[in-house]
């Protein structure tokens, strides 16, 4: 007996909830991310017949549009920047934690300087773990277009990182003396 509509949706939901939640958390505050996840799966529920077999890029595409709608207000527009500059990486590492946190903050600061489309291309591949073909579907463009976008984004990120790394470190002692 074929699965009912509810069963099909439940399968889709359980298989992809964690990934969609991760996608939203990487781009929005935890509070806004909950709304993005709810709205994304609401769209999937209402358009279940349109969801392709490889659902995740499709869901990411919906989540991207939901996020774009959210960011139309100025207060939420700053959320990504705050998120990118926010808490340290939770990824396990054998490196010194202080060094790793500084490195992660540096990378996220460089990311924050990129355009939305460049940043999205990089994040889909590096953070959301999609192949170039699936990332292209999530971004809503052709594979060739995405490859060019990703190439340019990498170059831009490398440039921003180099600029940040070559900037002189602030003299904390001097600053505290000035404040004091």
């Amino acid at each position, binding site marked *: 007996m074929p699965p009912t*509509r509810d069963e099909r949706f439940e399968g889709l939901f359980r298989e992809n909830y*964690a990934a969609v939640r991760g996608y939203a958390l*990487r781009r929005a505050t935890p509070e806004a991310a909950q709304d993005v996840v709810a709205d994304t799966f*609401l769209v999937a*529920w209402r358009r279940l017949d349109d969801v392709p077999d490889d659902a995740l890029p499709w869901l990411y595409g919906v989540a991207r549009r939901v996020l774009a709608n959210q960011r139309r207000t100025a207060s939420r527009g700053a959320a990504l920047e705050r998120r990118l500059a926010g808490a*340290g990486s*939770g*990824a396990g590492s054998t490196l010194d934690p202080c060094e790793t946190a500084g490195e992660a903050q540096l990378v996220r600061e460089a990311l924050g300087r990129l355009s939305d489309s460049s940043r999205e291309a990089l994040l889909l591949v590096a953070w959301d773990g999609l192949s170039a073909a699936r990332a292209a579907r999530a971004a809503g463009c052709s594979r060739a277009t995405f490859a060019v976008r990703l190439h340019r984004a990498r170059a831009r*990120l490398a440039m921003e990182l180099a600029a940040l*790394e070559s900037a002189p470190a602030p003299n904390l002692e001097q600053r505290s003396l000035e404040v004091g």
Partner: protein
Amino acid sequence: MRPRGDLMERLAAADPVREEELSLAEQRDADALLVQLLATPARPVARPRIRRWALAAAGALCAVAAVFAALNLLDSDTRGPGVIEKAVAAVSQGGVYHVLERAQSKSIGAGQGGRLTSYFEYWHTPGGRMHRKTFAVDGPRKGRLLNELAGKRRPGRNGGPVLMWDVRSNTINAGGFATRPFIRGTPSIDSFSDPGTQLRMLEQQGRLRLAGTTQVGDRQAYRLVSGVVPGRVRGAQASVEFLVDSETYLPLAQRQSIRHPSGDGFDVSTRYLVYERLPLNSRTREELDLDPHPGAKCGPSGNLKLGPLGFPNPCAR
């Protein structure tokens, strides 16, 4: 020296979200969202055209009903602010509150979602400590403990650290009290919140009003209702109603509802079988802690550095 390496590797290492299984709290959030979505109509229901004369008649009926309701309340011996203040005070005194509750949730309307009954026992203090156990209501584990959580909300805030033990995996994990339910003003749709916290928060938000009296079992009860506020899913509306004992002012029951524009939705009905205040002593203080679980494993998040739980973290290194 900063670590060098491939650009994409550096980028991946800066990922702020750890890939790991959902915690118990996150799984509960996911389950709640799934039930809500299944209760949502798959296609927005076309609304019938409403004629002006029908609107006018409905408006007149509402006005008459409002007058009757106001007269009814004026005739009663209840005083709105007094009852609300007493209800909030009743759950905000010192000591330890011990609660046994049965919660039933069900879908309303065309979306034939699930029906779920849960049974909880918990101890909480107005200072934010909470220890809750969930028991199976049916199935092969009927009456047996399913999971347990204990922690402490940060003073004046919704969030705070919590440890959770899952019987199936015999694992202790760390998490946090949910802060999300109040983002859009949705009152008390928070699976971790105790009635005391909910009542205090609703009162602080100015959302509670007295809506008369009713009967709960053999007890006379006051009805305290919130206004309708936006729900989690876009377009949905939520509301909550507390029934408090007319003598002790302690909660007897609670009803929460979420409605979508079509009229479909989701209801949670909670009956407090026991709601008592106990003195704070060595015995009741122990009830606020996570029970000892010899042989329990510590999950990946169990040994994270947490804020004060109110009791020693068995997974702390």
